[in-house]
């Protein structure tokens, strides 16, 4: 099937400042694309370019196979949900939702039918006569989504729609957006700075930094095989442990030597890694550092480290120690015996380890 959204070599400048550099993304119908990155990375600008609210400086942007470079937002067959909801303050909820149809001259009967449909879907029927000012944040969010849904567009655009909600509501609405996507099978582009939102919602993630795409992939690819140190550090909470190490090839694979404060270096052996440069940065997720007995296999090796901080988080307990001069986090069971100041035996699982070049920050293996 043809991609529903196809962006090739897109550039965006404000005067002499390059905001977006050589963006290449395309998604298939039914995809949920999440643009994620720290503030100022250009993700919202990219979304505005897709919506047609910002003109692009170079490259091509196609929606449904048609070039959109000179097409105005209203003719792009898109719907957008904004961070501040952008509900029309003087109109009732019903008028907010039907405004787009009214402007486009849709007949009253169709308007009423679609309004009823969307109101039922989002459970906002009792609110239809109210003004936006009389609604709570979560209700406004629903109305904003209703305004998008009622249009039945080729492409839904979401600009950080959940960041004005409190933590609990955010998780609820996240689930709701996901179930909406599954129900409708619609194509969506979603901007967020929250990597958990990105992981949970996306079928495809674009990680951006400084106007440049760092990596495109499924949530699993991004999580397990980050393309560089930035992606490794940005995606996942707590962040991936990035430990400087010395690599030496031996008969069976590679020996990795990790410096420790006031003690012998830890030596781990990775039987699958070959041809590593001498200096590498080892990327290990917190859940790959556990306690002996929970994981088995030849990739698991044990070492003793001094525990510095213990943070119980309910389901798990996070334990911090220092390796290779960096503070690292291990994700242990809630009932762990680890205590601050004492030595503890950790099990390192190198099954999903990543290696990065400390100079360029790029992934080696």
């Amino acid at each position, binding site marked *: 099937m043809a991609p529903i959204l196809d962006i090739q070599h897109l550039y965006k400048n404000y005067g002499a400042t390059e905001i977006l550099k050589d963006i290449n993304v395309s998604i298939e119908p039914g995809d949920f694309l999440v643009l994620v990155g720290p503030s100022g990375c250009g993700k919202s600008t990219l979304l505005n370019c897709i919506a047609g609210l910002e003109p692009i400086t170079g490259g091509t942007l196609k929606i449904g196979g048609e070039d959109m470079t000179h097409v105005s937002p*209203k003719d792009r067959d898109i719907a957008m949900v904004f961070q501040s909801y952008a509900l029309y303050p003087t109109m009732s909820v019903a008028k907010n939702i039907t*405004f787009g149809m009214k402007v486009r001259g849709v007949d009253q009967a169709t308007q009423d039918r679609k309004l009823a449909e969307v109101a039922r879907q989002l459970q906002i029927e009792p609110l239809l006569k109210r003004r936006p000012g009389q609604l709570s944040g979560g209700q406004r969010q629903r109305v904003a989504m209703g305004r998008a849904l009622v249009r039945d567009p080729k492409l839904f655009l979401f600009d950080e729609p959940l960041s004005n909600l409190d933590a609990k509501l955010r998780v609820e609405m996240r689930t709701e957006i996901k179930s909406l996507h599954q129900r409708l099978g619609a194509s969506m582009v979603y901007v967020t700075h929250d990597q958990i939102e990105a992981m949970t919602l996306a079928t495809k993630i674009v990680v951006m930094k400084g106007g440049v795409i760092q990596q495109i992939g499924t949530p699993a690819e991004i999580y397990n095989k980050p393309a560089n140190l930035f992606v490794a550090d940005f995606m996942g909470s707590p962040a991936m442990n990035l430990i400087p190490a010395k690599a030496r090839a031996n008969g069976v694979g590679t020996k990795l030597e990790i410096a420790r404060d006031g003690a012998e270096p830890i030596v781990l052996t990775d039987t699958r890694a070959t041809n590593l440069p001498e200096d590498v940065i080892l990327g290990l997720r917190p859940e790959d550092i556990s306690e002996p007995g929970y994981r088995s296999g030849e990739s698991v090796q044990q070492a003793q480290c001094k525990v510095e901080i213990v943070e119980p988080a309910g389901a798990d307990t996070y334990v911090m120690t220092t390796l290779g001069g960096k503070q690292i986090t291990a994700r242990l069971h809630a009932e762990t015996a680890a205590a601050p100041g004492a030595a503890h035996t950790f099990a390192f699982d190198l099954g999903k380890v990543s290696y990065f070049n400390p100079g360029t920050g790029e992934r080696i293996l």
Partner: protein
Amino acid sequence: MTDVSATPTAAAAARSQGAGMKTALRWGLYLILGLFAVYYLMPLFVMLTTSLKSLEEIRTGDLVALPREVTFDAWAKAWSGACTGIQCEGVRPYFWNSVLIAVPGVLISTLLGAVNGYVIAQWRFKGANIIFALMLFGCFIPFQVVLLPMARLLGLMGIAGTIPGLVFVHVIYGIGFTTLFFRNYYVTIPQELVKAAKVDGAGFLRIFWSIFLPLSIPIIVVSVIWQFTQIWNDFLFGVSFSSAGTQPVTVALNNIVNSTTGVKEYNVDMAAAIIAALPTLLVYVVAGKYFIRGLTAGSVKG
């Protein structure tokens, strides 16, 4: 304010002393405010009482005394009989001239200000700030500077000495202020509102008409009050750009007061002055609370 180490009773005493002080200050404040109020209301009081007295009583009586015998003769004469030069029709025809100048002047300048403010605040284009700065500059140009060029322009346009000509002058002069009001009001409205409406398919005028104008009631009130007061009270433009039949009430009032010969009819002058001031007073009384609200309003939640 009380010492923490003091005993409870001492603290209580200090507190009650403080409270007594506070009450005294409060009454002092009321006294001063009351004096100011009397000071400001005095002229109005004198005008009202004088306009209700007969000429005989004015000559013999005290300026601040209440009228011994209330008569509305002076008001009737001021409205329809007082002489402005050779004509003796009172202020009535000139009052209607002022209405014919002020109403279209206020409506047109407010509407143009709203459109200007909407464009400058929400449809940022290259040079928007410069244009806004120039418009703002227009607010500070003294009336006298534009008199001669404006007279020439009105002549070229063929509307010199007419009521449309005066409306035109007041609209031009008012746009700077009304643009400032609306721009500052609209700048607080999130830009996402325009974006959302664009995606919904609405165009420039549709967004203005359906979304921005309904939001603008408070600032429209401010603009209307401001412009109405300015235009109604204007004297210089009125005297410069009018001809015999098109003078506004302010000019007529001046003529009544200054062109009488013989006995000065203070009661008629006062009544005419009050008639000339009534509409602006009325506007403030009716819409005054919206004026304050509109000046301090802005942010739109939602």
